[in-house]
């Protein structure tokens, strides 16, 4: 897990915002975070808003569609039920006009009438005639009801008053749900009022409702105005009990309402009052089941939303990381170039100073040299003091010291001179010796052993002496800093088969931890920041090696030591290619 994190962690992640010698670098992580947050907001907010709006619009349209559909079903049902009842009332009315009351009072004729009614309309159970005192004076049907008194019943009074009457469904004394349709008949001859009364079984009536095809666990039934269930209901109570839904007040038109049932379930209920009857048609559907399609839409919407968000986030994070990393790399490159330039400039100044000093010192040195030589010559050639060993010894030591000074100034001059880019033929052994000479004193003080294993027969190669010196000096200096007193430094050089020179600088110092090893060539990476390291040494060295067309590698083990390996092409690039100015 940690190694995976290590692998995908972008380069800029570990930079200190204020790191770098005098360079104010950006806080890349902040830029990265800012970019991501901004992009996420810009990309996701419209998406969310769109999804939300879409969801609401869909829900709204689904809801209104459901209400409309329920209203339509309710209206149609109302029409069917009303038509059914109307048809039967009209049938009675037709009988009255067609037959007249005298014919209807005749039982034989009445039996024929009932038979034809049953044949043509169906649903008629019995038929009877009641006189104005409420006594049944004629009756044809399965029960023995002749002479029964109906004057106390609600239907009698209503029919007398209004002409027609449709009863609610009731069990009556037959214990069979039925309803009664009655019609007032006036005997034109005697002027007496009679009532033609027919009983309908509820089968036909019920089938109108049960045949309705209702989606979503729908239920269609009829209740009377008190809410007593008149036809079988699937879910809302048994026949002739009160329905478990609230009944709204009378309305001419169909109404649809969202009602919460007694069991807490939400229902979409269509109500329609049927004119001139006690009936109300109820079409009840479960809102939840009606809204089922919304569930599917919502899931789809959610999936699309989640997928989009994930893809957008991935893309944003990827792009932001990529870009910030590019910026980081560009900054690093710029800083590195700047530093190299600064460094080169500084070196050039030091070089000019050194050259000036060396030159000024060289002339007096030459004079001292000549004068001392002359004195020596005088002694030797004139034979005057030839035997004075002490004087001769003194003069020799003057001459030796001058020679030493001369070596130093010559080295200074050669150092200064090679700040200028200059391709030279180089014997690697000489170069290594020159560099080591600079550090030999320090090595002696610290009793560091330096082993050089450079074969005599290395072919000379064309390269920039100054840069090579600097590369070599940096590596040896690094090794010195890594080692304790009494360490071993080993320098080897070999020619490879493919025209390359491989040289290694190996120390037995503290080594470099694995975590740092891939960053040691980064500019500003330093483990010695507190002691004034700039983190530039190895990066400059690396840059120089690259400039000279070589490559550089490092191997290290903590506590055992570090080996730097540099591979230089033996066939140097042409001097014209290198036009860096000091």
């Amino acid at each position, binding site marked *: 897990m940690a190694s995976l994190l290590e692998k995908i962690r972008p380069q800029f992640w570990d930079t200190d915002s204020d790191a770098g010698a005098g360079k104010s670098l950006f806080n890349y992580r902040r830029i990265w975070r800012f970019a991501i947050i901004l992009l996420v907001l810009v990309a996701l907010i419209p998406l969310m808003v769109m999804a939300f709006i879409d969801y609401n619009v869909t829900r709204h349209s689904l809801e209104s569609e459901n209400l409309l559909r329920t209203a339509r079903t309710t209206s149609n049902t109302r029409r069917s039920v009303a038509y059914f009842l109307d048809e039967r009332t009209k049938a009675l009315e037709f009988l009255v006009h067609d037959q007249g009351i005298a014919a209807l009072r005749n039982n034989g004729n009445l039996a024929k009438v009932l038979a034809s009614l049953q044949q043509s309309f169906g649903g008629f159970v019995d038929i009877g005639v009641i006189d104005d005192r409420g006594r049944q004076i004629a009756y044809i049907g399965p029960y023995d009801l002749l002479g029964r008194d109906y004057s106390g019943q609600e239907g009698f009074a209503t029919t007398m008053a209004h002409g027609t009457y449709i009863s609610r469904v009731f069990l009556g004394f037959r214990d069979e749900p039925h309803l009664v349709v009655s019609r007032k008949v006036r005997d034109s001859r005697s002027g007496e009022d009679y009532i033609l009364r027919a009983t309908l079984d509820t089968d036909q009536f019920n089938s109108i409702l049960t045949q309705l095809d209702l989606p979503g666990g729908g239920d269609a039934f009829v209740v009377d105005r008190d809410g007593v269930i008149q036809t079988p209901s699937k879910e809302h109570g048994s026949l002739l009990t009160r329905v478990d839904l609230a009944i709204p007040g009378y309305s001419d038109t169909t109404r649809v309402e969202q009602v919460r049932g007694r069991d807490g379930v939400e229902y979409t209920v269509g109500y329609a009052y049927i004119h001139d009857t006690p009936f109300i048609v109820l079409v009840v559907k479960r809102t939840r089941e009606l809204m089922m399609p919304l569930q599917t839409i919502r899931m789809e919407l959610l999936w699309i939303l989640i997928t989009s968000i994930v893809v957008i986030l991935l893309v944003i994070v990827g792009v932001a990381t990529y870009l910030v990393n590019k910026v980081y790399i560009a900054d690093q490159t710029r800083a590195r170039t700047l530093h190299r330039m600064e460094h080169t400039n500084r070196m050039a100044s030091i070089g000019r100073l050194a050259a000036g000093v060396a*030159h000024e010192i060289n002339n007096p040195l*030459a004079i001292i040299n000549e004068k001392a*030589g*002359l004195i020596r010559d005088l002694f030797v050639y004139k034979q005057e003091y030839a035997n004075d060993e002490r004087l001769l010894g003194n003069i020799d030591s003057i001459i030796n010291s001058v020679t030493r000074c001369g070596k130093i100034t010559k080295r200074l001059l050669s150092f200064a001179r090679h700040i200028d880019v200059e391709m030279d033929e180089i014997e690697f052994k000489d170069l290594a010796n020159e560099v080591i000479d600079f550090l030999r004193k320090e090595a002696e003080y610290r009793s560091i052993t330096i082993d050089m294993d450079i074969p005599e027969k290395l072919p000379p190669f064309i390269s920039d002496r100054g840069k090579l010196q600097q590369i070599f000096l940096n590596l040896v200096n690094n090794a010195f800093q890594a080692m304790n007193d009494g360490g071993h430094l080993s320098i080897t050089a070999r020619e490879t088969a493919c025209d390359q020179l491989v040289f290694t600088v190996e120390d037995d110092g503290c080594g470099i931890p694995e975590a740092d090893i891939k960053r040691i060539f980064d500019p500003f990476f330093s483990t010695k920041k507190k002691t004034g390291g700039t983190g530039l040494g190895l990066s400059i060295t690396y840059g120089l090696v690259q400039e000279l067309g070589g490559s550089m590698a490092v191997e290290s083990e903590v506590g055992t030591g570090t080996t730097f390996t540099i591979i230089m092409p033996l066939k140097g690039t042409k001097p014209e290619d290198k036009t860096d100015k000091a």
Partner: protein
Amino acid sequence: MKVLLVDDEVELVSAMAERLGFRDVDADWTDNGESALAMADKTAYDVAVLDMKMPRLSGLELMERLAEKHPDMKFIFLSGHGSEADFKAGCAAGCNYLIKPIQLEDLVALIRKVAA
């Protein structure tokens, strides 16, 4: 064998001439280019040892003017600046030069070599 030493440092050049004398090299010296030209007109020198950097007339210029008049004359340069690149820029390959401070024995050997 006659040798002409030219260097703007009188102390240096006089001592050098005297030392060369000890080693059987007959050397005249002067501290400027103009007198060197005059001396060369009077005496036939085999070898001229010139300092690279001198006021007014530099070593290279002096060499050109001497070589014009005395085609057989050989030249050795002394340089305190030590820039081989500068030197090579103005001097054809095969020029002889020594960087100051010099070992007199090196100079004597070089003189004998070029004169031979």
